């Protein structure tokens, strides 16, 4: 035997990577003079202690499923899309324009509004990914830097639109008018009440959660059961070999990036349409970046992304509760996110090499 068993690859190593990241995060909390165990308890209680906590945890989880899937599709094509943040922002613009300007006569029910919003959000997100994708495919400009630049440009664009053309007249805040009532999505409270389950009224988790879960299945089928998915994966594994198989690199780069952008844009259905119900400046709240950690942790598999998104949903909600009840600011989540990306992404070999050696040594001992 010269390989590790599969369970070690998909479960043990990610677990060890995560463990190191969490132990280091605990040390950071300790270093700024707080008790890491108390902090963890506060986080667990804040995220899972009530249906209110669950409602926020699942709301963030929904965001991260979308952005995590988005990053993972790009990763499959050997591309690093750091532009999820901007694509989700512009996706939000699409969702907002759909909600504000499609006449309500055309949208008699929230489900029809949801379809319109998903189309608009997806198209706008994909559009924002198109230029970096085109420049990568045609001119070799590195997609990592161009997508980061497009995040900054998206921020400036939204800033302009919400201060000038789309701003609600006479309001102090830079935000658009509220969306019409018919576009408001049912929350988990409204969905679960008929089933006799009481769920917190003020929690933002909404029907988009099920859209996100469906998206996991769609992405799985697309990547593993369709010709396009096969081509994307083949290109990601070996661009040169895939060219000989008749796969066009230009097409794959552009299609994969636009799919990635579209799914990032869909995030806005949850955040902009489901929660804020109007266009605001920072609706994305860093979810686009967390998608990177989620995709890496989930090993780019939709089911892995789902689990990782739940973990980060917990961290995000727990982290905000923590900032209310202790002196630890919300930025703790960015530190954890950085450490998770570092250990599951870049320093993977640090854990993998010794573990692999251990398994091989153990197997040899058995043989002898």
């Amino acid at each position, binding site marked *: 035997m010269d390989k590790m068993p599969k369970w070690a690859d998909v479960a043990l190593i990610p677990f060890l990577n995560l463990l190191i990241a969490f132990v280091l995060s605990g040390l*950071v909390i300790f270093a*700024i*003079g707080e008790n890491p165990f108390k902090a963890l308890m506060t986080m667990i209680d804040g995220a899972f202690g009530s249906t209110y906590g669950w409602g926020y945890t699942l709301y963030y989880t929904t965001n991260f499923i979308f952005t995590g899937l988005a990053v993972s599709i790009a990763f499959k094509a050997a591309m*690093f899309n*750091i532009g999820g943040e901007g694509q989700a922002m512009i996706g939000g613009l699409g969702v907002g324009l759909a909600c504000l300007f499609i006449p309500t006569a055309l949208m008699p029910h929230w489900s029809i509004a949801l379809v319109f919003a998903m189309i608009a959000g997806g198209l706008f997100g994909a559009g924002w990914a198109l*230029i*970096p994708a085109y*420049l990568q495919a045609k*001119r*070799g*400009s*590195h997609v*990592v*830097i*161009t997508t*980061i*630049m*497009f995040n*900054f*440009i998206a921020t*400036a*664009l939204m*800033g*302009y639109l919400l*201060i*000038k053309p789309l701003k609600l007249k006479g309001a102090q805040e830079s935000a658009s008018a509220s969306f019409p009532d018919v576009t408001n999505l049912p929350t988990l409270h409204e969905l679960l009440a008929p089933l006799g389950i009481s769920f917190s009224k003020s929690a933002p988790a909404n029907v988009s959660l099920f859209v996100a879960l469906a998206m996991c299945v769609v992405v799985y089928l697309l990547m593993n059961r369709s010709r396009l998915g096969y081509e994307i994966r083949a290109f990601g594994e070996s661009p040169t070999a895939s060219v000989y198989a008749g796969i066009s690199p230009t097409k794959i780069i552009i299609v994969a990036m636009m799919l990635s952008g579209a799914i990032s844009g869909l995030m806005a259905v949850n955040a902009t349409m489901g929660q804020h119900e109007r266009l605001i400046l920072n609706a994305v709240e860093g979810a686009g*970046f967390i998608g*990177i950690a989620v995709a*890496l942790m989930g090993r780019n598999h939709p089911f892995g992304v789902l689990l990782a998104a739940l973990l980060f949903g917990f961290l995000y909600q727990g982290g905000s509760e923590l900032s209310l009840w202790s*002196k*630890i*600011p919300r*930025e*703790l*989540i*960015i*530190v*954890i*996110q*950085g*450490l998770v*990306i*570092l250990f599951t*992404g*870049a*320093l*993977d*070999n*640090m854990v993998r*090499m010794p573990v692999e050696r251990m398994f091989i040594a153990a197997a040899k001992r058995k043989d002898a």
Partner: protein
Amino acid sequence: MDFLTIVQIADSALRLATPLLFACLAGLFSERAGIFDIGLEGKILVSAFMAAAVASVTGSVWLGLLCGVFASISFSAVHGVASITFRGNQLISGVALNFLASGITVLAAQAWFNQGGRTPPLMGEGRFMPIELPFALGKSDAEAAGVPLRVLIDQANPIQQVYSEFISGHTILVYVALLMVPLSWFVLFRTRFGLRLRAVGENPAAVDTAGVSVIKLRYASMAIAGTLCGLSGVYLATGLGAGFIKEMSAGRGYIALAALIFAKWKPVPALGATFLFGLLEAIANRYQNIDLGGIVIPVQFMQALPYILTVVILAGFVGKSVAPKAGGQPYVKER
């Protein structure tokens, strides 16, 4: 627009270009040795924070400089371990370090100073002060003449205006940054170390065959990049600004990378490229809304301009630029 205004914009462009220039040269050493460094941004940020934090506690800007550079080098070391020793993905490592920097600076600032993620404003010895070159018009001349300095410079001849405003009156780090340009050129293109460093970025196997350690050279490049990037952050917090504010690097690390590509991985063009970005920022700062005969360019557009220009440069509309061949690939020794 009169001549003095142009001089003043150029003066502010030079200040704003300095952090970019340090970071660009840091990226130059790193990428010439074959290591992508998306993490410039994070290194600028940690160094800015450490410099401001230490300077505000000890009151000594030089101690701040030391600690800022040290923080940046530690981040470089992690990047080196991830991308050289463990052959990890260099882009992912850089992005991770950027997040780490962005979070940990606010966490530490909050824990130490409790001022909402910033350090107290730096004063006196906690900052780098402008250096007045000989014969330049300065405060003492203004006092002697009994008029404000602004008036004195306004009345001076153009050469004196350029000298006093543009050339004189910067902090020491601006002059250090300018000095780094010929120094980097000399090290990279006129020394044996530089030749080997460039070779490692083009064809590491050949360097290895010649009996020179690829690993050592790459770590050396990381150390140099860490130092230069550290100076960028130190200048940002103690020269350009007066203290640390969260996210104060504002994408400068990425812009420096674009400038590096624009400069075709050469030190002297790097000066020009970073000055151009500095100029854009200076113009955006000075003119909030530019009126072009009825059409008003909004301030948000001016703020986004450096980022848009970065994309245009990366798109290669400014000439072809070829990266070091072995960039981004970990070196695996053949057995």
